[in-house]
């Protein structure tokens, strides 16, 4: 069932390209703002690069999060799934997977561009790709959670961001720490292990919370 739902999500994304292209564009724009704001001094940018990348990633994923359940809620599809009590979990997993494939994975693919823009060097670049690879799924999971909580709220968009930010902080801390350690030539497998642990914990707990949130919003 998850595969059918995933295919549906990907078809919808293919037909509404703005839903995933706009967040990516937004990511690049935010990335460009930083050198314009703090000055193009390469050493300064290199030091700030981990934080910049991960904050821009967060903002980009949050932008994409708003649309996650919007159409399906408006059309009554969520209501149907809740009433049928069958496909809800598979639906949620498909949403997470589709969101990662359309918004998270492109960030990983774009990381060479980011490295070039911010002057990130080889060791740190590898770390950056790895943290993006492991961290963006977690970002997708959290954004699905935020979208589910605020699904039927008025003005849910910015509220979604406010809710997700505190939950995002551990990911931000460990991902940037890993890249920093790599740039200093230190081992960072510990930080990566913690990222994996957080991802697994989220995979185990969050879908249940999301299903619960969807049920509450539809009641």
């Amino acid at each position, binding site marked *: 069932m998850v595969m059918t739902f995933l295919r549906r999500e990907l*078809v919808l994304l293919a037909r509404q390209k703005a839903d995933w292209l706009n967040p990516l564009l937004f990511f690049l724009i935010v990335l460009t703002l930083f050198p314009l704001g703090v000055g193009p001094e390469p050493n300064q940018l290199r030091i700030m690069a981990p934080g910049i990348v991960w904050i821009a990633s967060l903002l980009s994923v949050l932008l994409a999060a708003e649309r996650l359940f919007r159409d399906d809620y408006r059309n009554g599809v969520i209501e*149907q799934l809740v*009433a049928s009590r069958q496909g809800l979990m598979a639906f949620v997993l498909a949403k997470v997977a589709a969101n990662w494939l359309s918004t998270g994975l492109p960030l990983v693919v774009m990381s060479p561009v980011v490295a070039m823009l911010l002057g990130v060097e080889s060791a740190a670049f590898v770390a950056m790709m790895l943290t993006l690879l492991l961290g963006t799924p977690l970002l997708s999971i959290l954004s699905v959670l935020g979208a589910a909580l605020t699904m039927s709220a008025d003005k849910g968009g910015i509220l979604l961001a406010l809710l997700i930010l505190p939950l995002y902080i551990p990911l931000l801390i460990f991902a940037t720490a890993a890249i920093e350690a790599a740039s200093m030539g230190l081992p960072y497998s510990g930080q990566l292990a913690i990222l994996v642990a957080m991802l697994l914990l989220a995979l185990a707990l969050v879908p249940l919370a999301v299903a619960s949130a969807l049920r509450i919003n539809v009641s």
Partner: protein
Amino acid sequence: MTDFLRASGLSCIRQDRVLFQALDLELSPGQLLQIQGKNGAGKSSLLRLLAGLSTPDDGDVLFCGQPLALQAEQYAASLCYIGHQSGIHEHLTAMENLAFWRAAYQLPFTDNMDLLGQLGLAGLEDMPCRMLSAGQQRRVSLARLWLTQAPLWILDEPFTALDQHAIQRLQQRFHQHLATGGAIIVTTHQALSQDFPTLKTLELAYRW
């Protein structure tokens, strides 16, 4: 005759407004219950209570003698609920929407093309639903009633946007379903044009 659905003492409060209190209703196989009332009287809220989407503020709903809470999965499997909204995604085609429901409700494979043809949608199956008229979209949405095997149907304003021919077709489907021992709860503004011998009505008063 065993009751399919029995609700007693139901009350529903939405945003500090009491929609209804101490409401009782019964439904047996083969019966069609039509719920009438002005807009805002609480018809949709009542249907959502009966469909198990929300819990009543008072009273309970029994399906085959058991409370809904104790048999959520079985009840959901025996129910086809079509709410106020269409339940279709407007950027998907009719065929894709049907495929989604088939997967979601784990229904056996059927010839969707034939079904769509029956509903007067032949030739429109590969267009995104947003390009269909309101009546055509409603017909896609109602196509589930030909796919489902659930005995109990709960339908919120199913006749909206349908033309005369489609309304007749839908009521024929109702007859078919009732004849096989199913039961239907419907809200509708219009009076049913066909004759249903097992029709019951329930009027919800509009309360301040």
